């Protein structure tokens, strides 16, 4: 079924597996999604990030046709996720962040059941995954720990012959060894041309796996791009010791939180203002200099945190 992994071509344009425009989902008066845009391209692993309650799971459930969009357009694998749900689901697999199993079915039975309902699973891969994830498939659903329930759903999803994976914090409860196995599996899946939407809070996982990320807050997408692009949008921390007092640093647009202590300065600077700031330091005679690129954490804190205004986020 590898041929199925190539998306339909319309008028020479390859359409994206996931295309969401202006999606609104209201529960009563609460707008869980408020004009969300999201594009996931063919063959990429797309990180989907945002604080708790920002609407990640709601988005995925709209994509699964479990929730009906209040407004906006949603295209999934060139279909309508609400109207064509069952047909589309044969081409994708879903892993929720908190897997519920039937208390009296064994893990092995659940894997087979879900695989059959999805239209069959790859026997060889099933056996291999059970081995790699070290799952005991003979235990009853009620006796599995949280991590083991996740493994059951992951194996069922990864052993299915599908072109898209929708993963909603799939590794919560997994130990670091299993986390590594999961990452290898996602690599393998991508290597065969599959597309992944990965909602996650584990930044190392996102950094390691994702080609592009989208960050959502309060039901809207505030940032989208490759990690390199996103890094450019944030500030570098600079500390320096100069031979003479620095001049004009405070007047530069793009320099923030300037701290001057005699010949020592520390500040944060936007990527765009970095050359000008370095020039100012040069003029003062650089003794020592450290420049720290933003960590992923800082990147996300900036977008998650309340002090950042929406305009600043989406304007850049």
């Amino acid at each position, binding site marked *: 079924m590898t041929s199925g992994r190539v998306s339909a071509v319309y008028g020479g344009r390859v359409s994206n597996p996931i295309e969401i425009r202006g999606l609104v989902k209201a529960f009563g008066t609460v707008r869980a999604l408020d004009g969300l845009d999201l594009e996931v391209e063919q063959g990429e692993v797309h990180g989907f990030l945002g604080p708790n309650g920002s609407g990640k*799971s709601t988005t995925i*459930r709209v994509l*699964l*046709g*479990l*929730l*009906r969009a209040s407004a906006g357009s949603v295209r999934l694998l060139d279909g309508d996720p609400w109207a064509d*749900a*069952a*047909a589309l*689901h*044969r081409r994708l*697999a*879903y892993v*929720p962040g*908190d*897997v*519920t*199993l*039937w*208390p*009296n*079915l*064994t893990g*092995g*039975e*659940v*894997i*087979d*059941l*879900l695989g*059959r*309902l*999805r*239209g069959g699973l790859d026997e060889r891969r099933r056996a291999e995954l059970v081995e790699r994830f070290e799952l*005991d*498939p*003979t*235990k*009853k659903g*009620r*006796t599995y720990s949280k991590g083991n329930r996740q493994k059951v*759903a992951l194996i069922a999803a990864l052993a299915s012959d599908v072109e898209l994976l*929708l993963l909603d914090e799939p590794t919560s409860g997994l130990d670091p060894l299993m986390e590594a196995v999961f990452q290898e599996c996602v690599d393998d899946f991508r290597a065969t041309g599959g597309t992944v939407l990965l909602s996650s809070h584990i930044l190392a996982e996102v950094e390691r796996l994702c080609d592009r990320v989208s960050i959502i807050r309060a039901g809207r997408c505030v940032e989208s791009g490759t990690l390199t692009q996103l890094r450019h949008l944030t500030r570098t921390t600079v500390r320096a010791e100069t031979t003479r007092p620095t001049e004009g640093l405070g007047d530069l647009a793009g320099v923030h939180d300037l701290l001057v202590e005699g010949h020592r300065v520390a500040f944060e600077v936007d990527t765009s203002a970095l050359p000008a700031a370095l020039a100012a330091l040069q003029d003062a005679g650089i003794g020592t200099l450290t420049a720290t690129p933003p960590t992923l954490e800082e990147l996300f804190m900036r977008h998650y945190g309340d002090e950042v205004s929406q305009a600043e986020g989406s304007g850049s």
Partner: protein
Amino acid sequence: MTGAGQLLRHFLRRDRWMLLAWSVGITLLYWSQAVSVKGLYATQAEFDKAAAAMEANTAFIAMTGPARALNTVGGQVTWQAAAFGAITIGLMSMFLVVRHTRAEEESGRDEMLRAAAVGRGATTAATLLVVLVANLLTGTLVSLSLISVPLAAPDSLALGVGLAAVGMLFAAVALLAAQLTSSPRAAYGITGAVIGAAYMLRAVGDVGSPALSWLSPIGWYQGMHAFSGVRWWPLALLVLATMPVVVVAGATFGRRDHGSGVLAARPGPSRADPRLGTPLGLAWRQQRGSLIGWSVGLLLTGLSYGSLGTDVGDLLGDSATTQEMFIRGGTDLVEGFYATAIVMLALMSCGYAVSTALRPRHDESSGVAEILLATGLSRSRWLLAQVVFTVCGSALVVTAAGLGLGLGYALSTGDGSAVGTYLVATLPYLAPVLVLSGLARLLFGLRARFAPLAWAGLLFAVVVLFFGPVLRIPEWLQDVSPFHHLALVPAEDFRWQPLLALALVAAVTSALGQVLFRRRDVEMR
């Protein structure tokens, strides 16, 4: 035991409404028996005649207990209520104990509690105290209600205290079962089997071999002979048997690891049976236990009604109330009684029909529906499989009820043709039963959380059947009940039209529920 007192308060708070419901329910079982028997017979001669008929009916004795002083109100209460009271208080104790021990351990909440400054045995001790409170409360209420009738105080006290002691014995059994198994279901299974065995032992014993009754705790309770020369020493048997069981349960608890049972959980199959690959196969796998349980239960209930045979006339007496209650078609009392018995069996079958129609709602709130509906399984196919199971399962349950009724009647009267007659008379009641399950589906289609309101529909039907004439409920309102339309066979002649109309209503409500479900959001946890 550190923290046991605090846990006890916490448990009592959690359980207060449940405890009250169980105790009041069990008390009503005794009290209503006393009140209804008092009004049933106009003269003592009539009462004596009924009592003689009851004493001669072996099936009745097997069902209830040894026949003693049946021509007195107290004797009747003891006879009719003691065995069922013992089963019910046993179930109450079982649910209470397992709920606070094994179920808490499985859910992981017990782990949090034990990590706090709480002694190792505190949950167990607090659980035993809660169940003791529940049993004493029930016993006291039963005694007081009987004294208020008024019945003799010492005998009323014996019935109440004995009941509490039986409850504690079954609580101890449940506590031991909770140590043996690692799942609450298995603990319920073991305790239920013990309660069932106790009931069966005394049934066989009371009919022919009295020694067997002395192997059963329920037999000991009935051996106290309330209202027929009360004696207290069998109470000592109950107390003496309870203590070693509690000690063994405590010792087992002290030796085993948290979360595990003495009997290791058996591993299951690593691959799914081919039949599990369809939504119907899944429904069968999930619900076969309850289907078999309900079918057997209604078969036995039908059997017990049927075994009354033609004695019904003598048993019910000639009072105006019974005449009004049973002779609706204006013909024969026996036929009238069985027509009503069929409606009662159908109402019990609704318990199955509604509870299975609520399964999709449980799947939705537990989260398994989300996983299922994210596969190639469409919403309509998923729900349709559930509907098929509900319809076929309800048909089986109703058939079992009718078959039991016919068999019981045939066995007691020797009239073999009764099997077919009563089965055919019962089957049309599948239609009103399905109307209620259709109602559950319609509500489910609107909103998952509305679905349990279908129980109100059943309650309404029960009220109309039993109290409609007494409460003078207007005819149009009585007509809302789906059970108010079918001809009362065998008292009346069968009519097709109401049956077809009810079947149509059931189909339409069910289909509407399906359509609505396809259009709404799947509710999230």
